[in-house]
């Protein structure tokens, strides 16, 4: 079955569907990871986005039961050069194509993904539509223009959990995770370090959280624009100073806003597993997993209180900060990796240390 991708600037790409049929809009972004498509598919942060994999051969090792980052696929569409017709790996239980079909997600192959990626690099991330139903470019263009996009939209409410849940019931430290679309691996990393992990919906009030009386709070990753999340920002503001706080990705941006900073949208974001980030405290460089379209403006932060701890060496954007007095810190990248390199996991250890002081 043929499939069409139309970008809001009128650019058209045609390929073949390998997932479910249908039509979906979203912001189109590219991810440069060469492994980890299953983790990417199940990462709630991709809600509202159509993801292009720049590595051309996807699906080679199939889909397995373990490498999931949430209970379902949240992204709007998946675009590759070639989807493997078989799955080859001892853990694999199904092919990528059947997985997308089961989850009713559109997949398109046969696309010059490099050309599409270059287009986005030059023009910026933009709205796009994928369709297997409507071959008419004009009508598709109309639909994509009418779609809401990401800016100013609260996508967290679509991915957050509906009620308070225990990921791990017992542990030395009690950690509340404010779920803006948390990846399972964040929870796994906390659990591995002996934490009792309580996941709360993003709209949980600060009072409710304080009632749980945790040793620390983790602000999770998640999709979309942090400026649409005033309710989470407010909750965080009220938690500042009460206990250690660790923000990851969207959590970093939310913390930035709560600390009085500003956020802005990057041209095409960072999505991949090879970004060099320097820990300015030690001078060491870490290869990190990244997935964000928005960013904290370093200049907007009050330098008296906030120390910039991490910097992206590719474009010198904010990758991490720490409060000078309070046990509060956050990073823009993903120390939980999955997919991606493991070397930034030391930040979880730092978080645990904060609870132990």
């Amino acid at each position, binding site marked *: 079955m043929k499939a069409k991708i139309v970008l809001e600037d009128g650019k058209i*790409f045609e390929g073949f569907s390998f997932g479910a049929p249908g039509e979906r809009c979203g912001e189109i972004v*590219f991810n*440069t*990871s*060469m*492994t*980890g498509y*299953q*983790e990417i598919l199940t990462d709630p942060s991709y809600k509202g986005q159509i993801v292009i994999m*720049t*590595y*051309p*051969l996807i699906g*080679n*090792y199939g889909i*397995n039961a*373990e*490498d999931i980052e949430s209970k379902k696929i949240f992204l709007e569409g998946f675009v590759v*050069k*070639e989807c*493997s*017709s*078989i799955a*080859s*790996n*001892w*853990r694999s239980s199904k092919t990528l194509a059947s997985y997308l079909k089961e989850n009713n997600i559109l997949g398109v192959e046969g696309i*010059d*993904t*490099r*050309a599409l*990626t*270059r287009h986005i*690099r030059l023009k910026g991330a933009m709205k796009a539509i994928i369709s297997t139903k409507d071959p008419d470019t004009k009508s598709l263009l109309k639909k994509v223009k009418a779609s809401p996009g990401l800016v100013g939209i609260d996508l967290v409410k679509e991915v957050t959990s509906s009620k308070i849940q225990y990921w791990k019931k017992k542990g030395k430290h009690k950690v509340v995770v404010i779920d803006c679309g948390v990846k399972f691996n964040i929870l796994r990393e906390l659990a591995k370090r002996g934490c009792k992990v309580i996941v709360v919906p993003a709209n949980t009030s600060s009072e409710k959280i304080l009632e749980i009386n945790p040793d620390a709070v983790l602000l999770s990753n998640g999709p979309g624009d942090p400026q649409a999340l005033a309710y989470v920002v407010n909750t965080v503001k009220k938690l500042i100073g009460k206990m250690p706080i660790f923000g990851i990705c969207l959590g970093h941006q939310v913390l930035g806003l709560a600390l009085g900073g500003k956020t802005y949208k990057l041209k095409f974001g960072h999505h*991949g*597993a*090879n*970004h*060099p980030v*320097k820990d300015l405290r030690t*001078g*060491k*460089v870490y*290869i990190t997993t990244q997935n964000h379209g928005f960013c904290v403006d370093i200049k907007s932060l009050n330098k008296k209180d906030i120390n910039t701890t991490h910097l992206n*060496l*590719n474009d010198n954007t904010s990758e991490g900060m720490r409060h000078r007095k309070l046990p509060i810190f956050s990073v823009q990248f993903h120390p939980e*990796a*999955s*997919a*991606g*390199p*493991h*070397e930034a996991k030391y930040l979880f250890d730092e978080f645990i240390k904060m609870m132990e002081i």
Partner: protein
Amino acid sequence: MPKRTDIKKILIIGSGPIIIGQGCEFDYSGTQACKVLKQEGFKVVLVNSNPATIMTDPEIADKTYIEPITVEAIEKIIAKERPDALLPTLGGQTALNATMGLFEKGVLKKYKVETIGADVKSIKKGEDRQLFKEAMKKIGIDLPKSGKAYDLKAAVGLAKKLGFPVIIRPSFTLGGTGGSIAWNMKEFSELAKRGIESSIIGEILIEESVIGWKEFELEVMRDLKDNVVIVCSIENFDPMGTHTGDSITVAPAQTLTDKEYQKMRDSAIKCIREIGVQTGGSNIQFAVHPKTGRQVIIEMNPRVSRSSALASKATGFPIAKIAAKLAIGYTLDEISNDITRKTPSSFEPAIDYCVVKVPRFTFEKFPEAKDILGVSMKSVGETMAIGRTFKEALQKALRGLEIGHSGLDNKLDYRRIRNDKIKLRLEEPNASRIFYIKYALQKGYSVEKIQAITGIDPWFLQNIKEIVEFEKKLSAVSFQLSAEKLIKAKQYGFSDRQIANLTKSNEAAIRKLRKKHGVKAVFKLVDTCAAEFEAYTPYYYSTYEEEDETRISKKKKIMILGGGPNRIGQGIEFDYCCCHASFALKELGYETIMVNSNPETVSTDYDTSDKLYFEPLTFEDVMNIIDNEKPDGIIVQFGGQTPLNLAAELKKAGAPIIGTSVNSINKAENREKFAKVLKKLKISQPENGSAFSKEEALNIARKIGYPVLVRPSYVLGGRAMKIVYDDISLESFISEAQEVCEGHPVLIDKFLEDAIEVDVDAISDGSLTVIGGIMEHIEEAGVHSGDSACVLPPHTLGEGMLNMIKKYTYALSKELMVRGLMNIQFAIKDDRVFCLEVNPRASRTVPFVSKATGVPLAKIAAKVMTGKSLKGLGFTKEVKIKHIAVKESVLPFSRFSGVDIVLGPEMKSTGEVMGIDDSFGVAFYKSQLAAGQNIPLKGRIFISVKNNDKRNIVFIAKKLSDMGFEIIATKGTHKALCSNNIKASSVDKISEGDNKILDLIKNNEIQLIINTPSGARGQSDMRPIRSLAVMRGIPCITTMNGAQAAVNGIEAVIKKRFGVKAIQDFI
């Protein structure tokens, strides 16, 4: 961390001659390193015995020693140059071994030389199997399970625990007997018993076998601040058991999930830290069990390797260059990425294409050796291809291999191959297994079945199956090829020729059809970042998609066609010439465009030329680039036979080939036309003829007289040449040859016995011809010029003879209207000069001549080809040198057990070295040392020569005896020596039923062998001796001239130990 300022002068050790397992990748890495260190203001001292390298060009290092890479020679260089530091990690295993030797001898300590990059401790830890095992255990990285046993009972117990197959390695054996593999208890008991017996301490190591597991490699870089990045992951198509150099390999890894890949990445990082490689690159190998996913580490190379060159070309990340910068103190984040300019090198390349490397074998040169692959490397070169899918890259690589395949096509009719043959060819890894996989699929074998037999991952097999299935569809459509089908075929990597064969059309018609449908190749960039950042270096590959990224300039441009994969007969020398052409034309202001498919080379470095197209050298692929770039000139003369073979077709298609015309090339290559040229110029040629039948052949041979040199025509690379001495051998040759090339004649030439062969390299601009160098071969005519040692200037030829040679050279160059380089081979017999062949192109000896004389011949030639005159370039007279340079070739016999080492008309050497000195003796001696022939200065010499040589051996033996050598000879030779009062003892020939001589060799009681075999019988009689000598590393000289030269060398060195001198001081 800023650059170190406490060191000023750095010594770099190169890797010496090209041998199997150590190709020109180390010229690439060493050249990068020298350039970087020089740019950073360090004084660079280089030692490398290989004159065909770019790194030994006089402008690359400050002081370049083309000297043997031995501890003795390097110590002399260190004493003379007093470097502060030694960078040992860029010259392959040779440099590491030399460094360890220098350390053990105390040289490094004595002269206070610091090793940078990797220190001696970490080299040891990485290289020593036991130390490495212990280190990995310490940091908790899984290894193949193993245990030691001292008796059979314990051994059997261990084997039961490990499960079959198991590897048995006897500890401490005499002569280092290797491991063996047991597949069942019966085999095991036998091997274990034998192993315990052969071990001096009665110990065997029993190790779990990982044969058949999936094989992966990671290229890792580390800096002084302990930042570590993985540059590239590589997955081997062929599972464990086949040397990675002989495996088809794919980048990046295809069948690992992120969880598994990250686990491997973590282990690699832990490993490089534990081994303690301070800075630079390492290659780490892993095996993964296909059913359980268990990951074990196999080995690590604490240095830049063949795989690093591949990884550099596959990703655009210049590993060697960065390694050199890290060694002098920079950290990864302080070095910017050349390609993106704005981002740092402290990142991991993201690639958005698939890379396939396929090894090139030359088993046809060694018909006695089986083409079975195992743990010892056999391939002599490799080709790499880039495509957007594995299917495309694989097919591109197969046609880039130049073995007569235009992709994954059929040479055999699969229906006629029996199932047991298919099974056998699948089971035992071999050079053509990839094609047998296809035949098997065509015969209906399932992916599962092939996987069960080969152990190859089903993902690869499925992709091949998709090619096969599409091929079936293609052959069904015949003439009505739709645009849609055509584009899909191209995306699956099918060449026009393949499509033409499948649709019963021809290549030109398919090309036309493609153009009609608008199906044309587009070019994409290799940019290290999957298009995330803008790329500035124009490094391209072709594919069939929508967007073309090439930026075509308005500058005058010249395209240089490279030589493709290295093979015997076409190696680094031609790449050297291509690079020089590029450098020279850049100097003239041209934009240079390089086309090549060999990842080991300097020519495929992205900063050698203005643009690089990493593409197979076929008519189709080259034409696609020409259509796109529309160059003003194309150079086909420098890349060896590969581009030359394309010349006629390219010219026909309107490509602007510059230099000597295609017509002239044809005149020189076509036998009849060439004979006419010689006749016209009154230059003699050995009598010859061509025969279509046995009777005709016999008649011709009898007419011109035996011995004759025979070869089948139209067989690639002048293969299967032979000298025959009588009717019987001629007849058997003819019947074999006719099988090889039905319908083509057999060429017969008078063989000039005991003639002196001479090579001439010259340049002509059309009006003036200047000789670059005249080289006299040491071995007599009949030994392929590529295998013969030669000396420059000639040491036995008189002025008159040389003048005659010059006169002929000028005449030939004029007649053939040469513009650029030419090489002529002459033979001199009884004071008559015969012309053997003329090649109006760059020859294998160009770099050697350039190094010996200091004249950059290839550069001058390239400039001449664009219309410059020799006068204008200031090269109007032959350069006379006062010193002597000897080129010696290096042969791969130790890799091919069972193959006789006797030299003949078919080229077998893989590389070359140069010895340079003021005297011939010392220069020759150095060349032997450099080639790994440890010519002794004392000890015992075994001599056995054929009857013809018995007179001449007397003089040689006399000298040896006078110099204190003990001589042992076979009966006939012994008699000749005794009757001339030379002291010698006698030994029986093996055929006379005595193995004493073999025992002497085994016990290291013979230091040199002089053995000239006569006829076919004499050749086989001495064969076990020669084979044993090769395996034991005992020099074995098989020609009288070689023996004479060796004696000269020994004499000179005994008189005066040799000194070292940089080439900058010679010229």
